[in-house]
């Protein structure tokens, strides 16, 4: 008798799998695009759904496309997702969403904050999702992404963004960071800037002085991730090129960057440039002396190392100490002038900083009301007296002692 009761009780659980979803019945969305429409409060949502069969060794539907991109209108992401089910056969989940793409037009209109707020209410969108601003409409951007090698879209986004972030040309723009900075209402948020539309920049540009779309490129995927979109209070106000984004990485201690290969002017033969690897072991040190009635003093010290990679001018910098001293000075001056230019621009044009420096003034206030009253982005930062000094700790020259002496070769 007892056994019968037990068994019948267990039967109850068989019916109760409310949240059971077969893998087969789900489709995994990897990118969401949001565009503006003519009607206020209605947006165009684009979903890029990955095909899990592509790239697996088991074969099967190898002729299928790697992904499906669909677009529909709606007022928020979740309801639009349901509408999409009228032409997508499976239940869509957002758990694997890697990027949210918004068009520059929408970003500049300032509506983005509402959309992303609504999305964060659901548990489906992760805080690590990256925010990308596309020059063209988001729908166009997503439709034209045709990675040549990494055909699985979710891996494409993951690797593309991880790698580009490592080099510092695009910022880490997670939804998490967006909320911290936007809700903190003090600093500027940098989102990733990307496009498929190419428009070559006129005049000279060094390796990172581009924004997406300007980089001369032959072959490969058309999609370029470069530079950043500047958000102030949830609204996009400008774009920064790759170089400025790198400077922001250098000055912001919450952003990590692994590798920064860049060129610096050659002090002896100015027609050439010296290529070097910039290594920063410790984050920038920011010291703020808050003055209530006169400009606040902000002193930033960046300690870094340089490993010279190439000296196309073949000047002997490695063994001639006078030359070396010149090179040192040239590198420091170059970095300082870049940083100062960016800081000046943020103070005058943006009225706030993209370096998250407001963190460093917080310890000078006893509580939040006092801190908020001091008003970082209206009163303190735009009027602050900022000095940036770069401190070159070590100058290394790789494994070659000296370059070939050109005149001897051509003798």
């Amino acid at each position: 008798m007892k056994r019968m009761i037990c068994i019948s009780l267990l039967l109850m659980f068989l019916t109760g799998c409310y949240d059971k979803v077969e893998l087969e019945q789900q489709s995994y969305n990897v990118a969401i695009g949001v565009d503006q429409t003519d009607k206020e409060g209605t947006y165009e949502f684009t979903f890029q759904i990955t095909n899990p069969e592509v790239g697996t060794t088991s074969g099967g539907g190898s002729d299928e496309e790697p992904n499906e991109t669909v677009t529909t209108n709606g007022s928020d992401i979740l309801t639009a997702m349901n509408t999409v089910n009228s032409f997508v056969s499976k239940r869509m989940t957002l758990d694997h969403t890697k990027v949210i793409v918004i068009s520059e037009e929408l970003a500049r209109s300032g509506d983005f904050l509402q959309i992303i707020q609504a999305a964060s209410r659901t548990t489906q969108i992760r805080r690590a999702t990256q925010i990308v601003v596309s020059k063209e409409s988001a729908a166009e951007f997503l439709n034209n992404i045709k990675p040549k090698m990494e055909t699985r879209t979710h891996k494409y986004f993951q690797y593309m963004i991880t790698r580009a972030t490592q080099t510092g040309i695009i910022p880490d723009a997670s939804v998490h960071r967006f909320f911290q900075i936007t809700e903190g209402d003090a600093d500027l948020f940098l989102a990733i800037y990307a496009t498929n539309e190419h428009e070559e920049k006129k005049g000279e540009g060094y390796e990172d002085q581009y924004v997406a779309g300007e980089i001369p490129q032959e072959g490969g995927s058309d999609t370029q991730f470069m530079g950043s979109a500047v958000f102030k209070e949830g609204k996009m106000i400008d774009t920064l090129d790759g170089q400025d984004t790198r400077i922001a990485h250098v000055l912001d201690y919450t952003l990590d960057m692994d590798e920064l290969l860049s060129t610096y002017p050659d002090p002896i033969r100015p027609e050439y440039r010296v290529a070097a690897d910039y290594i920063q072991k410790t984050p920038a040190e920011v010291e703020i002396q808050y003055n209530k009635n006169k400009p606040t003093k902000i002193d930033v010290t960046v300690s870094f190392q340089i490993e010279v990679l190439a000296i196309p001018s073949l000047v002997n910098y490695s063994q001639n100490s006078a030359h070396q001293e010149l090179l040192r000075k040239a590198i420091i001056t170059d970095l300082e002038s870049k940083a100062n230019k960016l800081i000046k621009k943020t103070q005058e044009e943006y009225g706030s900083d993209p370096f998250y420096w407001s963190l460093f003034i917080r310890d000078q206030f006893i509580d939040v009301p006092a801190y908020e009253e001091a008003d970082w982005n209206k009163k303190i930062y735009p009027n602050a007296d900022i000095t940036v000094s770069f401190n070159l700790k070590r100058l290394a020259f790789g494994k070659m002692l000296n370059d070939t002496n050109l005149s001897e070769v051509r003798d």
Partner: protein
Amino acid sequence: MKDYKTLTTREMFALVTLLVGIKFADTTPALLAQKGQNAFWMIPIISFLIIFPSFLLLIYLLKRYKDKNLVELLEKVLGRFFGKSLGFLLFILAYATLIFDSRNYVEQIKLLYYPQSPTLIISIVFMAVIFFCAKRGFEVIGFTSWIGLPLIKFAVFLLAALIFKEAVWNRIFPIFGSGVQVIVMEGVKNSSIFLEFFLLTIAYTAFKDTKFFRRGSYFGGLFVIFEIILFFLLYTVIFDYNSIDKIAFPFHEITQYINFGDYFTNIETFFMVFWLFAGFMRFIILLYLITWIFGAVFNINEFEPLLFPFAFLALMIGVIPENAIVNELIIRDLLLDISTPLFVLFPFILWIVALCKGELKKT
């Protein structure tokens, strides 16, 4: 109760840690952050400082009146009527805590992991598990706690280690958050987040030796406060003050945020298992202790059959509040405010009465 007693310090340590320590993984941080902003991690310190002397005093009294549990002590000191009334009052408050906290957990499970399932069904399953485990008796609960503890704590500290690199320590400034006054007030008002310490004293005589109980509660108490502060601090430095008060379940927010390298993304389900286990353990212990108090107040020696009606009643009342926000921010907040003075003061009342009666003088 069975005659042989086998529980020792380590079981007591596990009981305290599981019963109180899981607070950092539910909505308590959200509740405290509403007022405390980025200094809300200090609130438990103040609460602990407020409540721990009372608890020590109670332990002292228990030690003096050898071999009595909480309710027996109350009766002995205050007399039959007042002792039982106070015991009953403690029972009511503790039971209310059980009801609303369990609803809170059900709500979390539903929202985060089973969005399609009805709240009622989850509540039923939840309560059923708790009931069946609680039925096994206190010894088994103690052993299970001890066995499960290393697993749960391993998961928790793994999470802390993984999230550590996201922390921005400057966010603890401005150091006093919304103001010293607010923090102290909140700390005092919400002291009852540690009220489970007092409930455990009902089991004072259930250990092999009462000194095991005392030792376990001291170690457990210290460990718990350390753990809670560590996690509250982590929430502060990860979310910052403007976002922390908008997040209902910071623990789960964190588990969703982290990755284990590039390959293992979306790993929150791993942590969910341990979290659920810890949640179940907490309510099993709580239900058992509360029923025990009830049994002691009404002289019911065989109180274990009462577990079922109490679990059922908790389930029924628990589903009444309309949504998690009402439950958390209004009812639970109110409950914590009400129970604080009682739990802080009653050991002092006992002590004063005992002193007046001159019972503390004889060795």
